[in-house]
């Protein structure tokens, strides 16, 4: 997991900015090293129980904002649906930005507007208002799309093509020369372990196989930004792991990955930052480490050699077996007191586990109708 700034493989400073010109914003440029950045401000809990994390502080600070590869600001979209058209607002002002080199998880329940957001970014849907920039350019600019890879949800592809023909078709759309195509296509098929199906028509492919070929398709132009819509859907556990490994490998190659999911474990395992969208609004966004460790619910301390009665004043005694005492300490300040007591009594600490909110806790908390 990326630590604030410093741990990210690509620092803010050493990369050329994308959007230096044109955006009209005044942005302090370049040189503040990651260490000197102001510490992230923690927002106060909002009424209604949801949590606001100022994860954007990482980006509002000097430097990193420059490398935003995808930026949405206040994107709104409504559709007229039904026989007697009734306007339904799907996106109610979506704003987020994805920095270069990170894995960005876009999380939300079914029907929250994840795919609609992605389609807006790709120019498949025209938003009613708001702006979207890809690599600092207007998102409809074909130049911007040259550096983009996309895997749609439940991919269906031209079933009359073989896997090789299919990849060759997309490669040609990027005007990739023939000799490069000849080398790259087998390599990508190997990457998604589909080399044995290279000559088979796609109509004979299973869902998992289509997902893999779809991923290969998304990488055909060696994109700097890969957008994956539910990339792990419909895969078996081995397939999920393989795709996850590929996503992590992409990050190691310095690519930016945006992926949507409603499955928390996927996001928790590989994302740097997440945005949670519910009902067309982003309820929370920030670094995953901030989001999940925001609230320490309690700390579990296992000690031996302490008098249970004495310890009970500091925390709730859950169990005492074989001379070991499990304490549940709700107040963070009291953790230090327990440790102090342990030191004084020359007792032993066997385990100290802060129980934090998991992403699931946060998610369920947000999605719950108020």
């Amino acid at each position: 997991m990326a630590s604030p700034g410093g741990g990210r493989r690509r620092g803010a400073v050493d990369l050329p900015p994308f959007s230096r010109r044109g955006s009209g914003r005044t942005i302090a440029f370049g040189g503040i090293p990651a260490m000197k950045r102001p510490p992230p401000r923690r927002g106060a809990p909002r009424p209604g129980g949801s949590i606001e994390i100022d994860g954007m502080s990482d980006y509002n600070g000097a430097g990193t904002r420059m490398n935003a590869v995808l930026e949405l600001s206040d994107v709104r979209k409504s559709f007229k649906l039904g026989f007697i058209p009734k306007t339904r607002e799907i996106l109610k002002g979506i704003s987020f930005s994805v920095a270069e080199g990170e894995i960005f998880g876009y999380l939300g329940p079914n029907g929250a507007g994840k795919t609609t957001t992605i389609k807006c970014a790709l120019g498949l849907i025209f938003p009613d208002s708001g702006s979207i920039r890809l690599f600092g350019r207007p998102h409809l600019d074909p130049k911007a799309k040259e550096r983009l890879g996309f895997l749609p949800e439940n991919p269906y592809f031209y079933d009359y093509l073989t896997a090789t023909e299919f990849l060759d078709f997309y490669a040609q759309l990027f005007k990739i020369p023939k000799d490069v195509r000849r080398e790259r296509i087998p390599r990508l098929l190997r990457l998604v372990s589909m080399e044995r199906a290279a000559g088979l028509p796609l109509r004979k492919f299973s869902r998992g196989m289509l997902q893999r070929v779809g991923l290969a398709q998304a990488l055909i132009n060696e994109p700097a930004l890969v957008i994956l819509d539910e990339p792990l859907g419909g895969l078996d556990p081995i397939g999920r792991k393989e795709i996850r490994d590929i996503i992590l490998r992409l990050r190691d190659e310095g690519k930016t990955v945006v992926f949507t999911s409603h499955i928390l474990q996927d996001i928790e395992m590989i994302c740097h930052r997440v945005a949670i969208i519910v009902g067309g609004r982003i309820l929370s966004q920030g670094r995953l480490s901030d989001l999940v460790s925001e609230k320490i619910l309690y700390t579990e301390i296992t000690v031996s050699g302490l008098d249970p009665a004495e310890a009970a004043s500091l925390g709730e005694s859950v169990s005492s077996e074989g001379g070991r005492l499990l304490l549940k300490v709700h107040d963070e300040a009291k953790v230090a007191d327990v440790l102090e007591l342990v030191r004084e009594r020359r007792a032993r600490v066997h385990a100290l586990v802060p129980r934090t909110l998991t992403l699931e806790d946060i998610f369920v908390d947000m999605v719950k109708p108020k």
Partner: protein
Amino acid sequence: MTIRVIALNTFREAVRDRILYLLLFFAALSIGLSRVLALLTVGDRIKIIKDVGLASISFFGALMAILIGTGLVYKEIEKRTIFTLLSKPIRRTEFILGKFFGLVLTLLVMTGLMALIFLALLFAHTRRIEWSIPAALFFIMLELVLLTAVAILFSSFSTPILSTLFSLSFYLIGHFSWSLETLIRKMRPGLGRTVVRVLYTALPDLETFNYKTEVVHGLPVPAAAWLTAPAYAVCYTAFVLLLAVLVFRRRDFI
């Protein structure tokens, strides 16, 4: 370049579709049947073979243009392949034009195949190559190009079944609209005549491309037709494609 890539893929899609071969089979059957009809006819049998053969090519070519064309764009949307395609650096106009040229290429190849069958049958009877036939085929091809554009236009906003009905109506109206011209001649000047005239101008006149009779009976094709028919085809096709692009350009793919 992009248009060419999409066109070639469209061609590949069409030639791997079984419906094309089914139509080709029936076209061949229909051309062959002209021989049987000729046997039943008194008079010039070669003329019957030519007439039925050319009519078959024209009719089955139109069916191919309509049945394949109406599915082309719709299938991309329905099967959601368009999501991936439009995320690549291509413009929507290029997509529509690629589809159009791909289908025109398909029809060129198919008309060529039907023509080969037809000319072979004709050669078996006359023992000589009929050089007037390609002239008729040229005009048939112009009509097919226009029909392709129409099928793609309907396909860009409607389901295949409706698009097929619309396109077939266009085809039928196009072949009967000349009767409006006759009507205009018989009407007295006034509002009615103006309405009919406007209607006649707006509706397609596909008989512009029909020189089968001339070719069959060995009459000369009017020299002006070599200019007016292609010009009419190009302008009408461009207009229809422009409409298709306008419909398609601002469309949301949900």
